[in-house]
């Protein structure tokens, strides 16, 4: 995959020399560290197109290369403005790397960036086709808690919950596969310069899959926790 050039930044006035500058990191005129220019997102900071498949080795290399430039260690003897800026700039770089390195966080970030996902908007309703299984699971969990309180026999319940745990783990795997398939479609649409309606449709599907994933993951976490206490 060839990485596309970062979006061209609007001209900026340097805080230090007050000259107009076009640098992403350092003033083209006086060489001082700059604020991250408006409109530079995590993808463009790491010089990546807004696609969901990322070559990890290239991402890491870019991250390390920018770390050399932005890390606070490089500015210990600089003035206070530059020291503050390096703290801000290197934390942004680390946040970007952390987000893009993780496939799920990457999708969430892309959707937020495209305005297709608002923060905190995770639907906690059970997906309709899972309703019956979730109902059964909750019943088993209640029974387990009761049985534990009255020191009853847990063997059968435990086995039932373990099988439910496996079942939902599998479903989680399925969601991840589906998400990956849609991500591929997104990348293809990106390369083909698809219209916004087609993109919106893909984003809506990813959004729904993310919500479903988050719901199932919570279920698995809960069951694992309850089982750990047995």
């Amino acid at each position: 995959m060839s990485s596309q050039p970062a979006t061209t930044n609007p001209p900026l006035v340097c805080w230090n020399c007050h000259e107009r500058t076009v640098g992403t990191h350092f003033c083209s005129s006086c060489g001082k560290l700059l604020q991250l220019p408006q409109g530079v997102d995590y993808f463009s900071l790491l010089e990546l197109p807004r696609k969901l498949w990322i070559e990890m080795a290239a991402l890491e290399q870019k991250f390390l290369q920018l770390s050399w430039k932005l890390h606070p260690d490089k500015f210990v003897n600089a003035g206070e403005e530059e020291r503050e800026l390096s703290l801000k700039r290197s934390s942004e770089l680390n946040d970007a790397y952390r987000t893009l390195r993780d496939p799920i966080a990457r999708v969430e970030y892309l959707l937020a960036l495209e305005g297709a996902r608002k923060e905190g908007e995770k639907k906690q309703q059970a997906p309709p086709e899972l309703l019956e299984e979730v109902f059964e699971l909750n019943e088993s969990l209640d029974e387990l808690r009761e049985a534990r309180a009255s020191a009853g026999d847990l063997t059968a319940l435990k086995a039932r919950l373990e099988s439910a745990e496996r079942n939902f783990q599998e479903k989680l795997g399925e969601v991840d596969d589906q998400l990956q398939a849609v991500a591929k479609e997104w990348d293809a649409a990106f390369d083909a310069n698809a219209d916004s309606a087609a993109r919106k449709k893909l984003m809506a599907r990813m959004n729904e899959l993310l919500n479903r994933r988050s719901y199932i993951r919570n279920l698995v976490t809960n069951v694992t926790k309850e089982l750990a206490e047995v």
Partner: protein
Amino acid sequence: MNRSMGRIVGIDLGTTNSLVAYVDPQTGRPKCIPGPYGSTLCPSVVSLDPDGKIIVGEPARRRLLIQPERTIYSVKRLMGRGLADVQEELQLFPFRLDPGSASVIRVRLGEKVFTPPEISAFILRELKSWAEAHFGEAVDRAVITVPAYFNDAQRQATKDAGKLAGLEVLRLVNEPTAAALAYGLHEKQRGKVAVYDLGGGTFDISILKLISTREGDIYQVLSTNGDTHLGGDDIDNLLQAFIHEQIRQTDDVDFSPHGELAQELRKALIAIKHELSEEESALLRFPLPNGRLFEHQFTRGAFEALILPIVERTMRPVKQALADAQLKPSDMDEAVLVGGATRTPMIRRTVREFFGRAPHTELNPDEVVALGAAVQANILDRGVQDMLLLDVTPLSLGIETYGGAVAKVIPRNSTIPASAQELYTTGVDNQTGIDIHVVQGERELARDCRSLARFTLRVPPAPAGLPRIEVKFLIDANGILQVAAKDVRTGEAHSIEVQPSYGISDAEIERMLEESIEYAEKDFAERQLIEARTEAESILNATAKALNSSQANAISAEERGKIDASVAALREASAGSDYKLIRRRIDELNRATLHLAEVVMNGAISTALEGRNVAEV
């Protein structure tokens, strides 16, 4: 643009021992600086003399036996902690806490009360003086190491201690990372390295990746884990509890943890522990107050059975750190042992078996952390361009949400500096404040995590949902949290007052700084006293010599009487501790002996001229 003129050092502020090191500009190699007793280890022990003087290091350690109620060791265990956190420590360590220790612990030494950062500052000040004596120059900046698993409050307390000691703390570096830096410089290691660091009171495991890039070497920490309540001290405690029980069965002896007897026994047991690292067995002989000699033969096997739970406790964080880095033990290229407790053969064996390779032990495990701190200090001071450390935050940062749950905003093992933005708004009309509670830890409920800070965002009355305030949480390169807020609609900074849950307030730090200057003055006064006494000694000797010389016969009886009186007055002043008085008496004696000196001098000249002719002169 250098903001400071003094020298910079690396300091390992340890639970049991502390060290100071620097990079030798000639060789480019880090070196530890020895103290007045020749050792590079400064025992992390502080004692308050009855005359108000602070004693640190080896002499303070001796006082553990004779003045245990005025002396404290292992104070690192109390750094950044509240009373509720240290209940376990209080069972095992002779800490005398002052009432009113809820959010900041206050320790009693004799008639005075100190916070843990103040006591740590005494240790730092001592190390600073070692370095200043070594360089013959002032030291005003330092890199100080902390356990990787230290939380925000423990890090802040360490930084406060540096400030109180008159040091600008350029960076807090995690101990295992510092050790990796020292080893990396030592033999240019590459690949994935596990650093197992069992110190006096804390355990850390860090997984690093050493990467060569075109620009230079990067030390990237992938994950870290640990236990800040686990160390060599715990081995000593186990041995002590075991022997107490043995003695209790045969003799009726009181081992109150504060007593001198307990300290004597602890010292003897530490020697046994060290002996068992070399020998298969060791004999403890301990005289009891009832006159009987208690004897116990330890075998290495019995010792290992006793400490097995401690060794096992270290392996849980090791496994977690590997899992977090998504690695298996066999993926590691190297393992490194750090900390005095890793001299224990059982620990070496356990680490070797787990990673399937012999761990590195070439560098002195007591010194390696200080050496690494010196390397990082040199990088920061000289702007060394070909090395870079990328460390992580050991604990997740979270915000308490409805129902006491925690929303994680910065996950553990995030590369630092790291940040997160959260948007807040009001839930009801004309709400004027939004309460925010920041916690650190991995548990799901806020009450099970470590409370870091609370603050209230003040908002002007407005319809619900209209105010929009963005709060930025930033963990800096020291692993310390900074919080800032911004009104999204106006873009203006929003002032907040963050009240740390544990730790010392800024006002209190200021007061302590003033007091620490008082201690600095005390140090100064002491030096003055020593110098004045030395000078008095030499003038008293010179006077006695002059009075005994043949020329002294030319001095009148009256004059001689005056000189004798001045000599007596100076002797008396010199026995006291007022250096100004000694100086005054020296001046008086100088004046009284002016004529005597002249006579002796003239006599000496005429003696020298005797038998010589003019031409020779």
